């Protein structure tokens, strides 16, 4: 990994370039569908990137990350329903509510570790799912239609496909940049140290729980942003967004792309969702093909796609 121009960097740069040029391709070919698909991919990539901060760098296997997608989404949906259309207000509430939820469940879950941590984060996310199902005023099980997208005045128009896509992409790249800074900061080194040896970190003087909790809150908040964007993208929010299989999807994206790598989750999200799209056009039993494919990557591609590319350099 000494040379700056290695396979991983090239892959990441190529991916970013492709994502930047996608709207041009879409308008040239008149293929609107691909822009819609990739808007969703970029948003879920943002969620995967935020999960990677705790899962890949922090070693905290959260199985309830989709809860924040729902919380961010419901913040937008509920405020819109109640007549508050301002995007600034909606997004601020989405982030704050996600942060608060992460703070509470983090404080409780981080007392446990290993399988127990996985199960308790899953349980909290399922709780959020059932609470949302019970919100009769906001559609309950059936979900809530959002009639007007978040309003950011003249700054950016979320109803414009291309503008909305670029907004999502800008959020994704900003969050990747933020995480790049975080993982190399004092805080980031502590969190990575805790992943590899918590007892040692306590012995040299770190109050480990505080750092893990703050990391957990940052990841939850960033995923809340993805949730707010997702609700705008679908003009709809329902409890299904928080279902545990969604949390599983996010985990698979992170593992597929490469845990603890900066761009791995983005690569993973693109690959996973594009494959899902292509295979589901082929056959309705697409999961039968997808499953073994994922199994192969996990079994033979340790470190995911980014890990494979890393070995290419050395090989």
């Amino acid at each position, binding site marked *: 990994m000494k040379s700056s121009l290695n396979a991983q960097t090239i892959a990441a740069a190529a991916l970013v370039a492709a994502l930047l040029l996608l709207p041009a391709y879409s308008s040239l070919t008149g293929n609107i569908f691909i822009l819609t698909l990739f808007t969703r991919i970029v948003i879920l990539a943002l969620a995967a990137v935020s999960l990677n901060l705790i899962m890949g760098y922090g070693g905290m296997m959260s199985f309830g990350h989709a809860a924040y997608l729902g919380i961010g989404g419901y913040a937008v949906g509920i405020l819109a329903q109640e007549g508050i259309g301002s995007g600034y207000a909606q997004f601020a509430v989405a982030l704050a509510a996600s942060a608060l939820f992460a703070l509470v469940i983090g404080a409780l879950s981080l007392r446990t570790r290993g399988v127990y941590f996985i199960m308790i984060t899953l349980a909290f996310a399922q709780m959020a799912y059932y609470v949302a199902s019970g919100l009769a005023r906001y559609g309950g099980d059936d979900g809530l239609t959002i009639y007007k997208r978040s309003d950011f005045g003249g700054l950016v128009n979320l109803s414009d496909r291309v503008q909305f896509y670029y907004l999502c992409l800008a959020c994704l790249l900003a969050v990747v940049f933020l995480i790049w800074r975080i993982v190399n*900061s004092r805080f980031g*080194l502590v969190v990575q140290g805790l992943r590899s040896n918590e007892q*040692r970190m306590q012995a040299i003087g770190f109050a480990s729980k505080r*750092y893990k909790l*703050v990391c957990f809150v940052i990841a939850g908040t960033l995923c809340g942003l993805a949730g707010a964007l997702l609700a705008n993208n679908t003009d709809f929010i329902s409890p299904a967004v928080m279902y545990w299989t969604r949390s599983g999807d996010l985990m698979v994206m992170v593992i597929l792309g490469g845990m603890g790598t900066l761009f791995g989750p983005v690569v993973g999200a693109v690959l996973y969702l594009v494959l899902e799209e292509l295979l589901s056009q082929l056959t309705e039993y697409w999961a039968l093909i997808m499953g073994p494919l994922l199994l192969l990557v996990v079994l033979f591609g340790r470190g995911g796609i980014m890990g494979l590319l890393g070995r290419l350099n050395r090989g």
Partner: protein
Amino acid sequence: MAEPLLRVDNLVRRFGGIVATDHVCLEVGRGELHAIIGPNGAGKTTLISQLTGHLAPHAGYIYLAGRDISRLPAYRRSALGLARSFQITSLLPDFTAADNVALAAQAHDGHSFRFFANARKEPQLRAAAHAALERVGLGHRADVPVVRLSHGEQRQLELAVALATRPQLLLLDEPMAGLGVTESASMVKLLSELRREVGIVLVEHDMEAVFALADRISVLVYGRIIASGTPEEIRKNDEVKRAYLGDQHVVVKHG
């Protein structure tokens, strides 16, 4: 007499029916190297873990420079000047040697809720890391990832990490374990230099090193301290010969 650097008062720790630490009393003065020896399973590591705060005692007290630390968590004890090296090397494997030491320096340089600036480029942390690495003779290996260091180098690095927390008292759990002859010799030399600066509690199986280095030795058998004194006194103590050195002779014969 002034309060000793470390005072252990009737410490007790049980595991089920086994008393792993049985009313242990211990005093270590400033600038003293106090060795704890004993056969396998005597409870040496259990004792060290209680001193560092990774294991809670069931009864008794631990005082560091007169302050009761018996119930403080590990990170608070570290802040008060207690440092430990681990028996099984437990460094951060994917970090470089310098990163490992710099983290220890960072732990004692205010809080680490700094999210944006690159910590690997903070000059005072890097300087502290390099100073500690030089101290243990690893200066030239600073940028090598831990996984590519030899076992002996990892043991030296353990010590550098402990030193970077600027401790008053070092707890060393078998620092010579698995070292070759030359590596052992350089570790002994390093410890004999360090003892002038910090108090040291040394748990070690290498008897030659222990008798060469220690100011005082305590012998732990089945969780109890059966003798405590200068190396000369311990060598002559009949109970020690029977219980510990004697056992070893038997083991050697049968082995």
